[in-house]
């Protein structure tokens, strides 16, 4: 099962490596990990996309809570939430492909943020599946470079992760 774990963690040197180290030491999966400071610069918010059985997820949450720097942990995917991922993708845009690329970007509501004679950089935001579909929809030979941030997410409505 796919799970999105959100963590509030003290914004201290080495905090990220404590979390990453825990996952590797205990053999848990990290599919993506994003981290940045929150509105309170002493706290970082980390989002980890992971997978595993219910038992494994229970252990992941418990083990994360045990880290001294971790303030709060929540499994976002347990209830209503929204999730987004940002992708920057550089594609070849020459000849007839140039028009096609523009059209694809429009269809997926992406934005072209860099243009040269032969390339575009397209910015695309959405659920990870949307980004996957975009990539699948392109001719693989035209993709020059892909950068994805990994998933970040937030609970809907009154679900708030705060100190």
């Amino acid at each position, binding site marked *: 099962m796919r799970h999105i774990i959100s963590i509030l*963690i*003290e914004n201290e*040197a*080495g905090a990220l*490596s*404590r979390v990453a*180290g825990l996952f590797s*030491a205990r053999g848990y999966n990290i599919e993506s990990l994003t981290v940045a400071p929150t509105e309170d610069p002493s706290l970082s918010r980390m989002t980890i996309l992971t997978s595993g059985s219910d*038992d494994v997820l*229970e*252990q992941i949450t*418990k*083990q994360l*809570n*045990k880290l*001294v*720097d*971790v*303030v709060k942990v929540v499994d976002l995917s347990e209830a209503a939430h929204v999730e987004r991922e940002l992708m920057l993708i550089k594609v070849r845009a020459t000849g007839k492909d140039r028009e096609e690329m523009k059209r694809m970007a429009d269809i997926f509501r992406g934005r072209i943020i860099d243009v040269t004679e032969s390339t575009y950089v397209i910015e695309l935001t959405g659920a990870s599946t949307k980004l996957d579909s975009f990539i699948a929809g392109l001719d693989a030979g035209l993709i020059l470079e892909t950068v994805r941030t990994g998933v970040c997410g937030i609970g809907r409505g009154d679900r708030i992760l705060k*100190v």
Partner: protein
Amino acid sequence: MMISGAEIVVRCLQEEKVDCVFGYPGGSVLHIYDALFKQDQVTHILVRHEQAAVHAADAYSRSSQRVGVALVTSGPGVTNTVTGIATAYMDSIPMVVLCGQVPTQYIGQDAFQECDTVGITRPCVKHNFLVKDVKDLALTIKKAFHIAATGRPGPVVVDIPKDITAQMCEFEYPKSIQMRSYNPVVKGHLGQIKKAVQMLQEAKRPIIYTGGGVILSDAADKLTQLARKLDFPVTNTLMGLGGYPATDRQFVGMLGMHGTFEANNAMHYADVILAVGARFDDRVIGNPEHFGTEKRRVIHIDIDPSSISKRVKVDVPIVGNVADVLDEMLKLLDGGCKTDPEVADWWKQIDEWRGRKSLAYRQTNHIMPQYVVEKLYEVTGGDAFITSDVGQHQMFAAQYYKFDQPRRWINSGGLGTMGVGLPYGMGVLMANPGAQVACVTGEGSIQMCIQEMSTCKQYGLPVKIINLNNGMLGMVRQWQEMFYSKRYSQSYVTSLPDFVKLAEAYGHVGMRIEKPEDVEPALRKAFTEHKDDLVFMDFIIDPGANVFPMVAAGKGLTEMILAEEL
């Protein structure tokens, strides 16, 4: 008044009432050693290898209720401590390790004696800190002691760059501490406790299974009261020995890989298990699938939620400090305890299992290791602190020395670190001056930290070393005999030193004991005439002796290999 960082370190130790630090000096801690020199509140024990400093600090903790402290220099000083830190971590022992670091501006430059202390120790500490500003030093040390001793205890490392120890700063030691990210639960959930008590009263084949958590939370008395009130059988893990008096009728012995026939059967066939400060370790329940074949209900008290339902599904989890939770249970039972009448039949069954006498062993012309431990128990009146190393001798000590009190059995249970025994003896003696301390060891383990005989001489630490010498790495040999068709690959130790001469060379007393009839007189002599000496007793034991019962790796708890019936 401004004082130096080094003085702050020492003042913090004084504020924490630390009376003794185990350590080894070096370049990056010279300022701290200078500050130590100028005071006499904190004694420093100079070990011969940093690993021993950490083991000794660990045993200081295990044998008292105080936090052990070690102090080492950067680079190799730190890397030498890693085994000791990991040992303490696996057994949840509160400890603070202060490490020197190269000056701040050199960090990351591959400076002389530099290593990434925080990185290297991260996976085996409860928490670690790198101090980057002298203003944070006192608060960081306060946090280190707080984190080490509260919640599920564990070792904490504080890495202190040399320039920080030279800088001047006002000193104020915080009285208390608040951390938004660290608030361990203490009180158990009352609703869950009530549910547990009801389940206990309905039990027909109950067992109380307890581990190191009982010792760590000083809950042995409460556990004993509870068990007596319920009249339930009690078994201890290796780490839990002494948590319940071993000479008591209700004690069925240690369980697990080398547990008694009665303990393992009672654990397997119980309908209600009350697990207290134990974690259903692989050495305890054997194959979890086999363990899962019996239907039972499990109540699990542990301060660490991640220990609950990790290996065995739990019906009533209770997160909290063992002592507090047991206290609540006792209060609830005060209203009258009505244990199920069928428990009497369960006791009959247990007594039948006991009749198998699974710890009986055959005497030979050689000294049997079990016999040495039995005699040690008699000679010390069952009152000694027993430290051990890792291997057959460790299991013999655990099986045959009947621990009636907590904190008397000092061994590396989780990590299984050979070489801890002698430095453990030093730590115990520093925390309990004048106590009887015996280190039950083997000729393999003792040589891993044997240099500490020199430390013992310097500080007059009269550890009695019980060397069960079979010229073999006994436990390895036992597995090779049983599972590798007697191919004794690298388990035979030749060219052993003459331990008597070696002990004498270090300035101690050495004895070599080769006949069974000499065992008791030698022990008596060591504990009376040589009470104040370190005595190295080299017992030449039967090389064929094996540890039984035994649950082979991957087997179920009831699939024990037993010694022949006598």
